[in-house]
């Protein structure tokens, strides 16, 4: 079989881009699940909200992409904190299913509201002028914005990993995941930490949404489209492992890209096939700890 290098690298690059979003989103889900025991089905809707807030900031406040990278996660993360205080905090002692159902319902409501207001055709969001253009790598062309997305999400993912695995704050989070009662009895305000963790996880989704806005149009269903794949990524990586979420996210993006080149018919299903294989052979996921 002849290998068309530019086409192969093109698909690899698309895979890396998708992988960046898979990694950011599954990282947020892993962080939230670790602390709250909530399977946050609203994650896709919150990602979509990040893109919409970026759009609103540009349209109504004149704040550009770079501002949106900071402001949109703060706004959507704040919205997440309200959700946690109003709804989620009552569910921690119940089965996972309740959190899943609640956040699933929230996702439908949020998505429905946006679709009612903005239709489903999508709104354009321009690539910031600093990142337009392409780079000629000799064997392929690399759009600057896409390179930025890959590098920046890698930085955000590794930064999050560092905070959780290597800092004192991260030690509180890990300890509270294991035994919240005892951590609280040491004098740490665990409920506030849980609230902020949810806000942070949601902010990560919103950040991904801002980064996605110039690539995919700003669209009420953009979250619903990606979240199913992201859940498969989380299942493959294993719930609760931070590095697992990152590696699996990028890795599966690349696998998907390669499949698009070698066997395009399977590109939409390859992740789910891998999920089935992992569930059969390693039910806790590649990086998960067996329950």
């Amino acid at each position, binding site marked *: 079989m002849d290998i068309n290098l530019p086409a192969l690298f093109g698909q690899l690059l698309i895979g890396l881009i998708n992988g960046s979003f898979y990694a950011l989103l599954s990282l947020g889900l892993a962080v939230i699940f670790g602390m709250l025991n909530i399977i946050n089905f609203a994650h896709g809707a919150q990602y979509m909200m990040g893109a919409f807030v970026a759009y609103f900031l540009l349209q109504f406040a004149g704040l550009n992409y770079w501002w949106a990278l900071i402001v949109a996660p703060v706004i959507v993360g704040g919205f997440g904190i309200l959700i946690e205080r109003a709804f989620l905090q009552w569910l921690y002692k119940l089965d996972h299913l309740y959190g899943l159902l609640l956040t699933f319902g929230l996702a439908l409501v949020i998505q429905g509201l946006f679709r009612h207001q903005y239709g489903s055709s999508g709104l354009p969001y321009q690539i910031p002028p600093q990142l337009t253009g392409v780079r000629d790598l000799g064997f392929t062309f690399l759009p600057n914005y896409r390179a930025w997305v890959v590098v920046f999400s890698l930085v955000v993912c590794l930064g999050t990993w560092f905070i959780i695995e290597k800092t004192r704050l991260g*030690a509180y989070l890990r300890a509270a995941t294991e035994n919240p009662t005892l951590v609280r*009895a*040491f004098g740490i305000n665990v409920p506030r930490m849980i609230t902020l963790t949810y806000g942070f996880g949601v902010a990560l989704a919103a950040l991904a949404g801002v980064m996605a806005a110039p690539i995919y149009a700003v669209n009420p269903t953009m979250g619903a489209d990606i979240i199913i794949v992201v859940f498969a990524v989380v299942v493959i990586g294993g719930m609760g492992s931070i590095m697992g979420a990152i590696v699996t996210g990028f890795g599966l993006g690349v696998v998907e890209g390669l499949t698009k080149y070698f066997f395009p018919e399977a590109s939409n299903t390859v992740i789910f096939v891998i999920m089935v294989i992992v569930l059969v052979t390693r039910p806790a996921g590649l990086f998960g700890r067996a329950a």
Partner: protein
Amino acid sequence: MLDRASGPLLEIKDLHAWYGESHILHGATFNVQAGEVVTLLGRNGAGKTTTMKSVMGIVGKRTGSVKFEGRELINLASDTIARAGIAFCPEERGIFASLDVEENLMLPPQVRPGGLSREQIFELFPNLRERLKSQGTKLSGGEQQMLAIGRILRTGARLLLLDEPTEGLAPVIIQQIGNTIRKLKEQGFTILLVEQNFRFASTVADRYYIMEHGKIVEQFANSELNKKLETLHEYLGV
């Protein structure tokens, strides 16, 4: 020691506690003076651990009065209680598997000035220094107990609640923990101890309370110990 003008450091009155529907404490009343080592004795299920957890605020429902330095704690959340200056070492030790030894040691935040320094903790428990980068739960049982006690000495809390610190440990380690408790007492810590191991308790305690069915049924000082052996037999079956 019993007649301090300033009043007891910890004063518990008519303490009731529930786990869900089951009523565990039925009006426990006792106190601990500053600088004392006081031991709660009693059979399994008498309510000793629940008493500690009620002081610490980690029992679902509790009523009555728990005063620490004159401040009422009964309705406060456990993080506020800890910040008042009380530290708890649970029976199951509570070493975190996802943290290494150093992270476990440094986890409890300082609630007051005057806690032990890392060096002072390593003087008490030299083993810990050698194992700082090991996963917390990879330590031996004795080392985990040292870690569980060591980490609450950093915080500046003056009242330590130690729940069965000798459970399941080898005699030589029990001895080391006894020495540690005596050193802590010399340094001015106040300790409330729950013990099944009466022999061990008798080497460190100033006073004893015996619990049965969620109440205090007997109290005596260490000096009265020999007179009380028969009573102890009756209540503890030792």
